[in-house]
């Protein structure tokens, strides 16, 4: 017994080392999963409060850029106002959208912290459960897609950025059907698409839009433009490099998308899988 005791004291720092590394390892495993956890909520609350104070100071330096982007957005919204349309006095006309059922609701939020250089990037927003945010909702910004909500605490939420190894956005390019856009950790300005069939006509500069398939984001939202595409010998699919329209290094205000109809779609789809 005494031998065992002296053995442990002699190698105490080694055992402590092994223990701490195992603890760190379990944290790594936990952080790489998409699931919610109590530990994450506590961490979000702590870091959220620190970063909120700091972001409050920092946002003064970006006021001009923020104003510009808001002005652009206002201009775009004005285009959708009734005053911006000319109505004909024809007795029959095609009404594309009049008092249709709302499919999405937007909750504006401020970016509290954001990384772009890691292999898996996360964003922290200053809205949480108290504001009705739920996990698995999409996040967009005036210029494009931002990511998907991961964990939600009382007043903050963490977002899996588009710049994440496991991120996948269902998009549409030119005449292609739904394809998925992924990000592989190289550069915050570019993402890639690897499943566009080779018969689809592509052009440099083609716009990439969100598809209407997944209900994470509103459909037909601009995601980026085709920067480069190539066909590997023997492959049936293009490798497409997409220049993202979202400027992740200068992200200030975003919208969390509440998909009002997604529950219905999800329940129908899960029924399809059961059979």
């Amino acid at each position, binding site marked *: 017994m005494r031998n065992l005791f002296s053995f442990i004291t002699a190698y105490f720092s080694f055992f402590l080392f092994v223990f701490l590394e195992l603890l760190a390892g379990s944290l790594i495993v936990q*952080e790489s999963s998409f699931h919610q956890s109590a530990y994450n909520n506590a961490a979000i609350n702590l870091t959220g409060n620190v970063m909120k104070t700091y972001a409050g100071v920092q946002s003064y330096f970006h006021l001009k850029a923020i104003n510009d982007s808001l002005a652009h957005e206002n201009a775009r919204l004005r285009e959708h106002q009734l005053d911006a349309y000319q109505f004909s006095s024809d007795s029959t006309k095609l009404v594309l959208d009049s008092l249709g059922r709302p499919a999405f609701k937007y909750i504006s939020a401020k970016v509290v*912290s954001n990384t772009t250089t890691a292999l898996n990037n996360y964003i922290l927003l200053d809205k949480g459960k108290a504001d009705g945010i739920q996990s698995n909702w999409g996040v967009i910004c005036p210029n494009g897609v931002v990511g998907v909500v991961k964990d939600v605490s009382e007043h903050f939420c*963490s977002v899996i950025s588009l710049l994440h190894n496991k991120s996948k956005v269902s998009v549409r390019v030119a005449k292609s059907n739904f394809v998925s856009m992924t990000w592989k950790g190289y550069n915050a300005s570019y993402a890639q698409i690897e499943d566009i069939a080779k018969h689809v006509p592509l052009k440099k500069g083609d716009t990439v839009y969100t598809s209407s398939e997944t209900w994470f984001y509103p459909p037909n939202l601009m995601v980026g433009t085709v920067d480069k595409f190539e066909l590997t010998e023997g492959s049936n699919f293009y490798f497409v490099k997409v220049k993202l329209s979202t400027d992740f290094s200068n992200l200030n205000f975003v919208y969390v998308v509440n998909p009002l109809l997604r529950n219905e779609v999800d329940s129908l789809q899960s029924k399809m899988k059961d059979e």
Partner: protein
Amino acid sequence: MNNLIVRLVLRFIGYLLLQVLVLNNVELNGLMNPYFYPLFILVLPLRTPQWLTLCLAFAMGYLVGIFTGTAGLHAAALVFIAFIRPTIIAVLFPGVNDEDNSELNLGKFGPVNFIMYVLLMVFIHHFIFFSVQVWSFSLFFYTLLKILISSIISSLLILLAEYLFWNKKG
């Protein structure tokens, strides 16, 4: 002694804030992420008990990491360099004795040895951090390049800070 503890607490908080508030915002084409906070473990006095070094390393890594959702990664890399620190010091500077029990600095080992020490420790830290983060060989050369460039930038930052704040009298 009390002075030393106050200084170490200030260093701990200062390096933590510098890392999460300033340096985490520095990026260059996704290749360069400078990490300054390992300096806290590098300069701990030689007489610090090893268990305390390990615990401090874990705390520092954890706190830096929760700001970017990578607490485990930072903690694992920093605890590792805290663990090998005594061995590295014994190999690089045989026979060094730390009479006044203060932080390690340029003056104690001489500039050349200290630069070697910082380069080696920072490289090991970055090697573990970035390889565990990728956890595959698919981006092997890209990761290697990232490790090298980030190590050089981090070491330069650390050495510059050490040189600027090096109190030559003490």
